[in-house]
């Protein structure tokens, strides 16, 4: 029997170790580059001879022309991500409440239409979206990116919130109605407080989606001072002798918030986001 247990552990490790390496190598490499000084970054060693935080200093002090607008762009990323999260929450929560609790006529249709958005691959929607924003006169305005991301994030958020809403007992609404609640009072005083975990999950999702977005930011915001950090990172690629270690350092800075936020809200994320996946 012991031999069977050992074999099982061995099999698990056989999966676990390669998986670990596969997952961590690109991330570790990123980290490695960021803490290496320019010359030795490309040496191919597993740990730099002289690990340094110099690169970060250079980034923060904007000592390279690619990084001229680092702080502005970082701020833009933050601003846009928060705006997207807030607006998506507002729109998606209202819609989910209307569809799930108020049973608005045509609610099912709206939900299906919303999900239809996901059946258009994002890269395909980008081009017409770009032209459309041009038509609306929004190009290079941060609103273009914000609204585009809200459009992309909303359907999934509505879907998840609706699934979660459906689980709330009906008697609560009835009791509230008997107590004299108007639709808005029901929404504000009964529904929202009970949906907080789902709201956190959905808000975090929208936040991360907007923060991590490249293509749309790249297309819709070409101005250096209004664009996001993601696009700035992409700009490094335009020359062959760019300071790669600075790029990686900036990249690491850019990558930290999403990782931190995800781990902070992990509890809500996994439950909330997979709620719609399995219908019991």
């Amino acid at each position, binding site marked *: 029997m012991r031999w069977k247990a050992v074999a099982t552990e061995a099999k*698990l490790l056989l999966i*676990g170790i390669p*998986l670990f390496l596969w*997952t*961590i190598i*690109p*991330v570790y*490499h*990123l980290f490695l*580059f960021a803490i290496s000084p320019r010359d030795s970054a*490309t040496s*191919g060693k597993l740990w730099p001879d002289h690990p340094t935080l110099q690169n970060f200093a250079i980034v923060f002090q904007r000592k390279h022309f690619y990084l001229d607008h680092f702080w502005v762009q970082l701020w833009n990323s933050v601003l846009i991500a928060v705006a997207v999260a807030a607006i998506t929450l507002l729109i*998606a929560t209202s*819609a989910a*409440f*209307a*569809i799930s609790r*108020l*049973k*608005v*006529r045509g*609610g099912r249709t*709206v939900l*299906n239409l*919303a999900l239809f*958005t996901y*059946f258009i*691959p*994002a*890269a*395909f*929607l980008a*081009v*017409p*979206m*770009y*032209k*459309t924003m041009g038509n609306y006169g929004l190009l290079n305005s941060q609103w273009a990116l914000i*609204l*585009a991301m809200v*459009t992309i994030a909303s359907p999934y958020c509505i879907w998840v919130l609706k699934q979660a809403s459906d689980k709330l007992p*009906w008697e609560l609404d009835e009791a509230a109605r008997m107590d004299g609640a108007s*639709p808005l009072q029901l929404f504000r005083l009964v529904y929202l407080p009970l949906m907080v975990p789902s709201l956190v999950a959905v808000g975090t999702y929208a936040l*991360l989606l907007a923060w991590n977005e*490249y*293509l749309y930011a790249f*297309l819709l915001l070409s101005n250096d001072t209004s664009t996001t950090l993601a696009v700035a*990172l992409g700009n490094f*690629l335009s020359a062959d002798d760019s300071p790669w270690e600075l*790029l990686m350092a900036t*990249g690491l800075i*850019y*990558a930290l918030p*999403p*990782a931190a936020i*995800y781990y902070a809200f*992990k509890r809500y994320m996994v439950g909330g986001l997979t709620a719609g*996946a*399995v219908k*019991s």
Partner: protein
Amino acid sequence: MTTTVASANVAAAPPPAAGRTRDRWQFWGRMLVLPYVLVFLVFVLYPVGYGLWLARHPSSYVRLFDDPIFFRSVINTLIFLIVAINLKMMVALLLSGFFVQQRWWIKILSLIFILPWALPSIPTILSVRFMLNPEWGVINSVIFRLSGADGPNWLNHPPLALGFAMLMHIWKSLPFWTLILIAGRLAIPHEQYEAASVDGATTWQKFRFITWPSMRTLYVTSLILSMIWTLGDFNSVYLLTGGGPADLTHVLATLGIRYLRLDEVDLSMAAIVVALPLVLPLVYFMMKRLSK
């Protein structure tokens, strides 16, 4: 025949209040769903319509088919779809079984495993790009030190470049689908496996007769959805290879943008429209599954 009155104390949701009051609730329902509907009309319906309108010139399609890059892109996309997606989903299925095992180190591993999905694409994809750099990238450096020979110029060989783009895509999206499949696995009652153990089933038999039948629907739905989304994975190809070398690793997603940057908007839209026959059957299957 006697009817069973669906008392509201049971799971089914009753329709809203009586009489005139229903209108008031419907009114607010409409008001609250309106913001999203507006967003949809202005930022989905209009762009889609406008895009289709931009793609109306037959001449665009003629030029499109004349472009050798286009056909190459289609083939690349198909390879990407068929190979990458299936590989990814099979691995996700395997891993879903792996991650439900109770071990302390597996739990820690599951936390790390999420990283590719949580982290933004650019730093990570660029990190891999640099690893593959023929002169100073880590991989070739290691090869040089081990064997004294120069490693290949990874991203300069179209098949290798495309392969790495696929690997990059898998790296990024595997965690998400694994999570979905894990949720599916957790929904299977534990007692079924215990009963099977008592009946003497092997691991493979348990998979075949318990796990797979329960997960099959979720798996196929995820597969189809993943195909649709992968068609739109711009980052993996663009940031790794830029579509190169010599525009040989373009997929339809990056091709559309390429034309856009060359100011050939109608070609761009035409390329997207041509991709529709790939997308629509998948969408059709998805809608059918979702309405079940």
